[in-house]
């Protein structure tokens, strides 16, 4: 009995990690962008673009690594466009992001159909080299035989795609960059008071552009994961609002790296639990509609924004184009 609950929890947690990975990457992308003062509504478009580009190039060149490279490059290009419009031309950041998201959402299926003729998708990635499949860490097969520590190792720590491990390193790396480097200090400063940064002799535009480009890199990895690890190719709208969910997690985490990580894990966990609880009747509550659990992260975010949980502390200068 205990064993089966234990196994269940391990599998649940493992599932959570898989679901959380693209979310965490996107949230951290949003972290860099928003802490520098640029609204991160374009995460959806960047991820989708990367998903398409990585799936397409992996299909054509037969290698997931090339897919990763091209996926990230595409996302960075989109980020560059966004920063051109928002930072250099001081266009409305919300409108620009929505516009770019829509354009990519339409462009990806259009190119997919034109290039591959398979309905609006890219070819399925069937060869093992075309995807980032699960990696088995050493001794995991023998570890599986011993339930208590072993299962933890074999299912939870081992057995994830390369990108999951990459994401796991990017998390502390991002926190380090933001809080322990000169660049990170400048990002944090420019999102709160760009005038202070300007009068200190630092280019506001440069810092913001760099931050947005970094968000492009992170979203690129996230999108690539969706298409080449979690899935096997590009399907229209495959990001399914994860870019906005990432923004919700960022807000819920009050724009702090580890709290945002916690929010992502929380959201991903509810997702995992939702699939398990489908149709299951809980004591006193009855059957919780799966839609409610799907909506839960968004509801929680609104509750936070309403100021009921804690004081929301966005970067002071966010969304305001810097114009002397």
């Amino acid at each position, binding site marked *: 009995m205990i064993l089966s609950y234990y196994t269940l929890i391990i599998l649940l947690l493992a599932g959570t990690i898989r679901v959380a990975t693209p979310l965490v990457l996107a949230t951290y992308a949003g972290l860099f962008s928003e802490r520098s003062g640029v609204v991160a509504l374009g995460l959806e478009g960047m991820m989708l673009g990367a998903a398409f580009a990585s799936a397409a190039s992996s299909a054509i060149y037969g290698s997931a690594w090339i897919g990763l490279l091209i996926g990230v490059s595409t996302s960075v290009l989109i980020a560059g466009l966004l920063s051109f419009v928002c930072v250099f031309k001081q*266009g409305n950041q919300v409108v*620009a992001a929505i*516009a770019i998201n*829509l*354009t990519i959402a339409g462009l990806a299926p259009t190119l997919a159909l*034109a290039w591959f003729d398979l309905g609006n998708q890219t070819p399925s990635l069937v060869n093992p080299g075309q995807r980032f499949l699960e990696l088995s860490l050493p001794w995991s097969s023998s570890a599986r035989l011993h339930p208590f520590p072993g299962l933890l190792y074999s299912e939870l720590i081992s057995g994830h795609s390369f990108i999951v491990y990459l994401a796991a390193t990017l998390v502390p790396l991002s926190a380090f960059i933001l809080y322990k480097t000169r660049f990170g200090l400048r990002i944090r400063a420019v999102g709160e008071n760009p005038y202070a940064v300007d009068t200190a002799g630092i280019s506001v535009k440069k810092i913001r552009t760099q931050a947005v480009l970094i968000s492009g890199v992170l979203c690129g990895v996230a999108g690539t994961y969706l298409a080449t690890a979690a899935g096997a190719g590009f399907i229209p709208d495959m990001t399914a609002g994860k870019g906005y969910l990432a*923004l919700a997690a960022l807000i819920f985490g009050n724009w702090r790296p580890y709290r945002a990580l916690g929010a992502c894990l929380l959201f991903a966990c509810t997702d995992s639990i939702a699939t398990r609880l489908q149709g299951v009747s809980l004591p006193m509550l009855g059957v919780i509609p799966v839609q409610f659990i799907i909506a839960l992260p*968004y509801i929680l975010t609104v509750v936070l924004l309403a100021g009921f949980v804690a004081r929301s502390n966005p970067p002071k200068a966010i969304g305001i184009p810097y114009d002397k």
Partner: protein
Amino acid sequence: MSNIKSSLYLRLEPIVLPLVNLGIALIISSLIICLIGESPQKAIEIIWKGSFGSGEGLGYTLFYSTNYIFTGLAVALAYHAGLFNIGCEGQAYVGGLGVSLVGLYLGGLPVWCVIVLGIFAGALFGAAWAAIPAYLQARKGSHIVITTIMFNFIGSALMTWFLVSVLIKPGQQAPESRAFSTHAFLPSLKGLFALLGINTGESPVNLALVIALIIAALIWILLWKTRFGYELRVSGTSQSAARYAGISPESYMFKAMLISGALAGCLGLNELMGSQHRLTLDFPAGAGFIGIAVALMGRNNPVGICFSALLFGALVQGGGELAFEMPHVSHSLVIVIQGLVILFCGALEQLLKKPLRKVFLTHV
């Protein structure tokens, strides 16, 4: 002589700029069509023929345009109060619930009664869905953009639950309700067009078009011919001047969002009461976002919105024909054009203002 040219240009600028911005969006779209290996010229021909070339095509175009008039007005009204309402998709969807409840349960009443109640219910439910984000922005300063996006997702989940668990027609798999009572079928405009010599064939263009146009006129009157509209515009343009004049910006933010949600909620009249005659999953189908493009291109003016809505209706209808006749061109191309229009008419609208002025004005 040159002064006349200058002042003429300044008067025409509100029309010239959006058209130029639209032109850039279309040029880039044409480039994409080339990229796919098709001819843009042929594509434009097909779009034109598909949307205006036949009576039935025209009917479909007008049907789609009706949707976009509602959502375009919704976005524009909020904009005049200084707010960016991205939640039209959710507000339209939940508004559809109101419309459906009338259609499903109040069908016993006379037709005109059902229609009026449908309008009222759609508006009420749409406004209700905008109320919480509106309140949070006005009272707590929570950013309306984020809250309305969240409410889009929450609304989608809520409506899915309604459709799957409550309203679903018993014994079927597809998530849709049973059909409305016939009193809730908005009459088709086929007869009206026949009088004009146009055969709209099987297209679902219906009375909702007339309702939309009337509402557009009413909104125009509201914004420019009433005290309410004046105060709304002032509070949306300059909060400090509004307070000076004794106007409360927060109060108008809230009221504007309610009206905006109500307008979006009327979408169900066209799609549900006018065409599908039942509640279906995700019936707004992106109309909320097209509304943003329509409002931006129409410069947030009801007259401009009606024309932009017509344009986008044509693009959607023509785009469908295009996808049919050119199997290589995806239906998603229309979404690309939509996104580009929002980009150039919204975020980059000032990009060409100075260069154009340099050309047309004698002094900058």
